[in-house]
């Protein structure tokens, strides 16, 4: 059964990741056209991010792992995303060596975002219940 705060957690995660999609879907296109027209960039299925973030935050609300902070919880998702992106780039035949740095880069980005944005939103909207 899905509890209210779990659904809310999903919506917070999905909403934030959906907002981040402004980067790849709007800013990149505008910046690309203005500053580096014709520059090909690897395309990864970022459209899945809202679902991933939503489910991950739902799991956080449901499980509340006592030993982990929400920042570390987000970093684990970042690590999984970075690994998935590398596998995807390999499978698509467009992998490049610098992509391996995503294994470090994304967990740090996600740590910051989950610690500074998702966590406070969870607190404010009552997602953070009693730890089990």
């Amino acid at each position, binding site marked *: 059964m899905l509890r209210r705060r779990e659904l809310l957690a999903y919506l917070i995660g999905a909403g934030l990741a959906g907002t981040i999609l402004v980067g790849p879907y709007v800013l990149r296109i505008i910046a690309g056209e203005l500053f580096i027209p014709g520059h090909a960039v690897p395309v990864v299925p970022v459209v899945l991010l809202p679902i991933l973030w939503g489910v991950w935050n739902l799991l956080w609300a449901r499980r509340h792992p006592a030993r982990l902070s929400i920042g570390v919880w987000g970093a684990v998702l970042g690590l999984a995303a970075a690994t998935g992106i590398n596998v995807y780039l390999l499978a698509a035949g467009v992998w*490049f060596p610098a992509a391996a740095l995503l294994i470090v880069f994304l967990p740090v980005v996600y740590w*910051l975002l989950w610690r500074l944005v998702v966590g406070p939103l969870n607190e404010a909207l009552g997602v953070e219940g009693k730890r089990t």
Partner: protein
Amino acid sequence: MPTLGLIRRGTPAPPPDLWTRFEAQMRERDEVVRVTLPAVGWGELAAVAALVAIVAVVPDPVGFLAASGMF
């Protein structure tokens, strides 16, 4: 009395106030949400510095950021 006259003499329809009632209901249910941001310390600054350093050293920063899904 013709039917039209009867209708005209009938009770007038109440003024349309659906939006007013809806707005009042929304205001009643609305509450102020206070978002408290955690203090930004050396850990966060070091993280940002590490991110900037990584983007600075990769040969194709745009492609790298695009692959990260953040840009």
